[in-house]
């Protein structure tokens, strides 16, 4: 199978008799902004884990630019261009914001295994850190350990770390989860400023955010895709309204 971007074909995953992904087929082309929604237990996290290599599919295909990525480990997929943020913020809490950003930048360049020079003595890495700090408005917190930051800012650090990997496919797993409403504009702003050629898949419960940032929405129910469409098509669909959005959505 050839093609540009991420292509998933007939992806299945079962744990014994429990089927958690059924015949999932989707495309993520460069520049796509898609959201994956679904009620709790729909299989969204499983799908993310299948794409990033945390778990292996029972059957089906996953290709990136025509290359089969199924045999790749999690870290190999990251190097191939598939990156994700976690549902629950997962950072190097005792390290400063700057050190958190230094790690993915050194790893991307293949320098994280070096034994002699100081980690902070690579000017090109330090310059890139400065750029990311500026982009995510974290410059003033550069030397603060991340566990002292507000949760919304920690989310930004996580997004900055993921972007530092220069991915081609970015999976944002509930980027607004746990973020106080006062800080959620920061997240929206950061997502809006993502590089235009980056393919983004957002898994999110916050419908305001989904409708603002996603051009296409995929609805997942019981491990299978119920439908894919524009925000207008999704919000107009009676099945989706019944299943997920509820009668309150208009």
């Amino acid at each position, binding site marked *: 199978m050839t093609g540009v971007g991420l292509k998933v074909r007939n992806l299945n995953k079962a744990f014994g008799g429990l089927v958690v992904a059924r015949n999932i087929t989707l495309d993520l082309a460069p520049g796509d902004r898609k959201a994956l929604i679904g009620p709790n237990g729909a299989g969204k996290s499983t799908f993310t884990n299948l794409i*990033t290599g945390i778990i292996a599919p029972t059957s089906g295909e996953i290709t990136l630019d025509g290359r089969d990525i199924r045999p790749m*480990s*999690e*870290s*190999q997929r*990251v*190097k191939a261009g598939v*990156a*994700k943020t*976690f549902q629950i913020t*997962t*950072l*190097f*809490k*005792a*390290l400063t914001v700057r*050190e958190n950003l*230094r*790690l*993915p930048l*050194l*790893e*991307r360049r293949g*320098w*994280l*295994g*070096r*034994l*002699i*020079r*100081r*980690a902070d003595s690579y000017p090109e890495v330090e310059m890139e850190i400065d750029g990311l700090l500026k982009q995510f408005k974290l410059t003033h917190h550069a030397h603060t350990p991340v566990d002292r930051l507000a949760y919304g800012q920690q989310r930004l650090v996580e997004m900055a*770390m*993921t972007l*530092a*990997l220069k991915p081609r496919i970015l999976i944002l797993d509930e980027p607004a989860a746990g973020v106080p409403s006062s800080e959620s504009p920061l997240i929206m702003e950061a997502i809006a400023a993502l590089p235009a050629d980056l393919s983004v898949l957002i898994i999110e419960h916050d419908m305001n955010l989904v409708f603002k940032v996603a051009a296409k929405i995929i609805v997942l129910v019981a491990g299978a895709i119920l439908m894919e469409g524009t925000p207008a098509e999704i919000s107009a669909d009676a099945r989706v309204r019944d299943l997920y959005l509820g009668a309150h959505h208009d």
Partner: protein
Amino acid sequence: MSHTLKTALGVIALIALAAVGYFGLADNLAFMTQVVIMMIFVLSLDYVLGYAGISTLGHAAMFGTGAYAAAIFATSVSSDPILGILAGAVAGGAIALLSGFVLMRAHGLTLLMLSIAVTEVLHELANKYSGITGGADGLSFTPGPILGRFEFDFAGHIAYIYSVCLLLLVFIKLRVLTASPFGLAARGIRESQARMRAIGTPVYWRMLLIYTFGGAFAGVAGALSAQTTALVSLSVYDFQLSAGAVLMLILGGTGQLWGAILGTMVYMTVHQIASSVDPFNWLFIIGAMVLIVVYLVPNGLMALPALLLRWRRK
């Protein structure tokens, strides 16, 4: 203050400390040498446990293997102590690498139990193959002069100076290693293995390498211990050695090198005094000391000045 300057000041402080020990406790240099050897051992543990968060209660496996390697090397290849230290480092690193293939796949309690098991297996092997190791009788040997000039003397002057030189080398090497990208990766692994994998790091292989380096440093300590006592016995694989090193590290503070040095110094000094005052109940004093420190200063004695400062401000 730059990292190089801090390292240089650290080296000066260590030399000053060693000089105080040398002149102040000139009639107890054998004990001082043991303290310095334990400092190297606990530093190696700090690199593995403090920096990378790899839980282990079996660090004696590498210490003991390094000790036997140095002794066997001296009796069958060359009595040159420097080469013996290198043999100890290689043996310690090799046993860490071999056991690490399995250990680094485990976590938490499983890892702790497996690390103990590896040491016990090595202990039994050393006992069984007494033709090579000397078994329960131990393996005695005579190390040659250091650099072909400095013979180990009865009073222990050369052994002490030699041990301090190796401590300085290990300290500098670890300062460089922990500040390098590889050292930052170790801290990243300690903080979150999941996040390290998500940035593309092959966590298992990095941990294996960290464990191997830690093992090599522990092997240096073991080889040095063998050379300065001219004897290796089965006690090099004692569980108490591994557990004692963990206690010394916790006492001083993990993940900062100086904690390993301070913790070893305090633990061994208290141990020495307590066991001479009360040879039967000295463990009570050690236990009480560890309890008090862990309760009052959970981050170890290195955190004490900051804590006192905070109390004073209140």
